[in-house]
């Protein structure tokens, strides 16, 4: 009971809960689920962009793309570390990912058939991620909040790069402009769905908000995102594919059309463009690398054994 009082006090006062603090089992469980899903999303998110590294159309873009995909692997690592402070180890979480038991963001189950998708992912997907994540920097759980600070810094960099890719295309040839518009058409709605179902269909959100893991509702975040997007789309010269999108003088926000939530649930159920393929690819990489990890372990064991033997021998010499 003392623990619970202390926990509620921390939450109340907007202070951080740390790994050594007592916390409710449900709080811990919610966090582990959310952080590991976020980590998995970073790992799986490497694939749709990794798809274009060998075909990037300029060396500068190739370097930026490689660096970005690297960053995602790094984010995955920080987040696994944050989750580990809650008592679930990385191997367990990774196993859940590659056996298809764990969820990750559905957005990465879309394909990237064109180069312009590298722009749309940066601008729309990373953009939505930032709207989601900036409030998470103040998440009540310390290690998570701190990981998010670092991640958000890099994500906003990625969003700018995505914007630049689209801008270059929109300033380019007709074929490039078409490529950009077609890609934005495909990514716009899925990006809006990244904030999750409408508030009335999102029962878990309430508790997360009470615990100050989540700070804003799905619909609030979505609105914030659309408001950010519209002026940027104007700069780019791309059309956002929503005929109902228009500024509402009264609310000061952009109204937008109904989203096709049946699509969202289809992808969530596993019937997206690439669900099975994404997981299978990471699993194949993991399986193909098993001998490497075993070798590293065996070598480390041998080194440790040799060091111990050397220490023993040294002791004996001293004793003799």
């Amino acid at each position: 009971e003392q623990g619970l009082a202390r926990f509620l006090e921390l939450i109340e006062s907007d202070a951080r809960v740390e790994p050594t603090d007592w916390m409710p089992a449900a709080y811990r469980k919610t966090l582990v689920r959310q952080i590991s899903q976020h980590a998995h999303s970073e790992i799986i998110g490497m694939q749709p962009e990794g798809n274009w590294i060998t075909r990037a159309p300029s060396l500068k873009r190739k370097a930026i793309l490689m660096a970005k995909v690297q960053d995602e692997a790094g984010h995955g690592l920080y987040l696994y570390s944050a989750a580990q402070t809650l008592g679930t180890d990385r191997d367990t979480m990774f196993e859940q990912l590659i056996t298809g038991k764990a969820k990750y963001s559905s957005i990465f189950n879309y394909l990237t058939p064109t180069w312009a998708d590298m722009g749309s992912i940066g601008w729309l997907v990373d953009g939505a991620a930032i709207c989601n994540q900036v409030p998470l920097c103040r998440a009540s759980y310390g290690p998570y909040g701190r990981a998010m600070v670092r991640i958000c810094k890099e994500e906003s960099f990625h969003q700018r790069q995505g914007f630049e890719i689209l801008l270059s295309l929109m300033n380019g040839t007709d074929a490039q402009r078409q490529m950009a518009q077609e890609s934005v058409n495909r990514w716009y709605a899925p990006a809006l769905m990244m904030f999750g179902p409408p508030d009335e269909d999102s029962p878990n959100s309430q508790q997360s908000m009470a615990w100050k893991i989540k700070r804003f509702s799905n619909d609030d975040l979505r609105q914030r995102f659309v408001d950010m997007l519209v002026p940027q789309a104007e700069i780019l010269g791309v059309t956002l594919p929503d005929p109902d999108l228009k500024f509402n003088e009264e609310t000061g926000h952009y109204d937008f059309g109904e989203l096709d939530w049946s699509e969202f649930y289809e992808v969530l159920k596993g019937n997206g463009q690439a669900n099975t393929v994404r997981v299978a690819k990471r699993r194949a990489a993991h399986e193909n690398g098993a001998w490497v990890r075993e070798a590293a372990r065996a070598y480390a064991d041998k080194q440790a054994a040799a060091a111990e033997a050397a220490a023993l021998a040294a002791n004996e010499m001293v004793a003799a």
Partner: protein
Amino acid sequence: TEAVAQYALGLGDDALILAHRLGEWIANGPELEEDIALGNIGLDILGHARSLLTYAGSAWGKTEDDLAYFRSEPEFRCRQLFEQPIGDFGQTIARQLIASVYFDSLYRALMHSSDKTLAAIAAKATKEVDYHLDHSTQWLLRLGLGTDESAFRMQRGLDAMWPFVDELYRAEPVASGDFGAELAEGLEGIAVDPRALRAEFDAVVPQLVRDAGLTVPQTSAVRGGGRQGIHSEAFGPLLAEMQVLARQHPGASW
């Protein structure tokens, strides 16, 4: 001068193609740490490629992208080691070890070039290659001394890459295209003669291989000729993939 540009082009192509191959590892590594490590090494080397190609291109009014995306196979100057497929992790480490030893001695020597640009590129690269060399040495030991399977695969990797070592240390056939010629006129004090670097390879690598419990391969060398535009069979498909988008949109900016 033309000779300096040709020299930079050769070095730049080596780095460009190796970086491309390393890029193929992304999201395919045996663990996340290696996705990151191989990607970082690839990024460093892509950086070297960009500096060298930009410098080479400046002599001809061409950009790095003109050179990377709009040359055909025989116009590329990369040595064949860098073109080889990534294979498994053992093969990649074998190449990376050979390449890092080569780059390490090359860039350390090139730091003293009388050509300021080349010296500056080399000075920056040297620090990065230091880390690359450490990475592949560590893995050579881990794989060589790890399990039976890893020793087998590491040995197979070395066997596959060893035939391409010789070509690295042959004279640069600058400009003239003359194979095995002396350093072309105009490059004394500017370029590094790779033949002078061979002793270091022989002093370092065979011993490392033995320390890892493996056998120094005895296979004969391939003839090579990458600097003359003669490339191995893996190169055509690599180039097709690398250039496909850029060539579909000639003149476009990205």
